[in-house]
């Protein structure tokens, strides 16, 4: 083989040897397929302007136990629970991606400038994340989600957006996004502080490359794996937090997220109707478990030192 071994290739070779990681990857693949399916279901209905199947009520078959036609039974409005779980997968992925769209740019940009420039910029960034960190996380998320949802619903400019994205979902993502960047920012900052003194950076600077280009074209590829690891390991937390938020009433209300399903199912647990809760729990459990384990394996493959570094720099 003539091509040099890249970090990614080495990591992939290591990952492939771990049976557990590969099983998790397969599970994640199944979830991703379900997500794509749910997304097409959602958008085809949305674009045709009809009520999607998972939102149609059939009051003649309410709260039915599992059967062949409905493997997980039906819920209070006679909707197929399996269909609800499938849409829940869509919501979970949307939350993970949308939140990361906020977390990654903020965490990366702030961490990069803080670590690269040091001094006053660093002080300012450290101050900023210390402030965000001093508020109990879930409280700040709730406060942001609550306020943002109100603001989004009131604002007419946002209605073009909320026609396609649930206002509650948007609020949850903004809440988790504006609190979740701290961890990534710390990580990237520490890494940039290290790289700033490396030979290739000094050489680039001597050649007159601009700071911006050094930061984003020279150093960035060397920290890319941190972003991917951070994303994978943050994802399960987001899914779990969303469930709590939806339960407490600041989350998603009009779409069947797993949290909303669990919240609904609670009232029917007393009727001996356990399949709804069981289904949502299982759907959530396997995704979170697979993400947790795969994220771990990915981290070990890409950057073994990271395992404890996260805590020691905190």
């Amino acid at each position, binding site marked *: 083989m003539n091509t040099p071994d890249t970090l990614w290739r080495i990591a992939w070779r290591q990952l492939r040897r771990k049976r557990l990681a590969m099983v998790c990857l397969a599970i994640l693949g199944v979830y991703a397929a379900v997500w794509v399916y749910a997304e097409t279901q959602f958008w085809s209905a949305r674009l045709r302007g009809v009520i999607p199947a998972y939102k149609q009520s059939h009051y003649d078959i309410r709260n039915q136990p599992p059967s062949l036609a409905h493997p997980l039974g039906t819920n209070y409005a006679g909707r197929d629970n399996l269909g609800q779980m499938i849409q829940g997968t869509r919501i979970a992925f949307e939350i993970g991606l949308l939140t990361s769209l906020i977390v990654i740019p903020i965490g990366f940009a702030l961490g990069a400038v803080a670590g690269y420039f040091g001094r006053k910029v660093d002080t300012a960034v450290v*101050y*900023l994340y*210390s*402030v*965000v*960190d*001093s*508020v*109990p996380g*879930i*409280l*700040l998320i*709730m*406060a*942001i989600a*609550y*306020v*943002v949802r*109100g*603001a989004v619903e*009131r604002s007419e400019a946002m209605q073009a957006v909320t026609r396609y994205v649930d206002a509650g979902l948007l609020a949850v993502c903004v809440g988790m996004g504006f609190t979740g960047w701290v961890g990534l920012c710390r990580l990237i900052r520490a890494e940039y502080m290290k790289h700033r003194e490396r030979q290739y950076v000094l050489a680039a600077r001597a050649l007159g490359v601009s700071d911006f280009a050094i930061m984003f074209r020279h150093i960035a590829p060397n920290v890319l794996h941190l972003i991917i690891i951070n994303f994978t390991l943050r994802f*399960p937390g987001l899914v*779990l937090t969303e*469930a*709590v938020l939806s*339960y*407490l*009433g*600041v989350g998603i209300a009009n779409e069947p997220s*797993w*949290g909303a399903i*669990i*919240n609904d199912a*609670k009232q029917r*647990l*007393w009727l001996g109707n356990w399949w709804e*809760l069981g289904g949502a*729990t299982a759907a*959530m*459990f396997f995704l*979170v*478990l697979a993400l*947790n*384990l795969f994220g771990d394996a990915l981290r070990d493959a890409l950057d073994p030192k990271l*395992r*404890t570094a996260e*805590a*020691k720099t*905190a």
Partner: protein
Amino acid sequence: MSAYILRRLLSVIPITLGVLLITFLLFRVVGGNPAYRIAGKNATQERIAQIARERGYDKPYFLNWQAFPTGLFDAQFPRLCRQLLRGDFGESIKTKQRVSTMLREGVLPSLCVTTPLFFIELALAIALALLAAYYRDTWIDRGIMVVAVTGMSISSLVYIMVAQYWLASEWRLFPVWGFEGPQYLVLPVLIGVVAGTGGSVRFYRTVMLDEMYQDYVRTARAKGVSPRGVLFRHVLRNAMIPILTNVIVAIPFLYTGALLLENFFGIPGLGRLTVTALFTGDEDVIFATTFIGAILFVVANTITDIAYTWADPRIRLR
């Protein structure tokens, strides 16, 4: 070292200001005029204007240039800061109680849940992590890790619901809801421990395994220290630093209470108080809890740094 501590404690001022600013921006600027929330849906315009005047919502947000120079700080945010500095937390919009009274009444129930939860979880997590690290790569280690990862992948909502439904309601082992005696605390604490320990065990085990392959462990073994002695006297002590970081920073959150548990089990603590305040737009309560929480957080962080020097004499604070 005392200079260091003083400097760290002084950082409480900018951080608390920052926290207040975020809360203020959220509830007064993005959230809209709170006078509407206080007055309710059917209030007249005059009533809203009256409330706004009484509570100072008609003033500018940060600086009052119209009243320059004497009344420059006669604006909403400076007034809020002055009020909190005086130790005056205001009064609840909804219950008309003094916020300081509400906080005082909520602290005890919160601590009743979070303190045992904190210590049991800590002891259990360290014990399990030690066990897993000691028997690493055996079925004991693997068993502990499987349970830990499974435990942290289940939503805490599910733990609460299943426990409330089966343990409390069906089998009547515990009371379902309320706060009238020690027996009401057993289930919330139990659930908290089950839901929270997994993540900590996993983390502590990694930290300990990291230490296990250090040179000093080999040296200690070579000079004849028993494996158990190495584990307790050498590894545990060195693993204390990341563990301390994890633990002490969690202490301020003892005070803010276990939000979810308090809500589910009807414990009248600060967590429940804050969530209720959030939904009713009771901003004085929110300002007070975030204010106190931020101060405690900075103090806890400083204590962590001091604890480092105790755990590892190589660290010097400057």
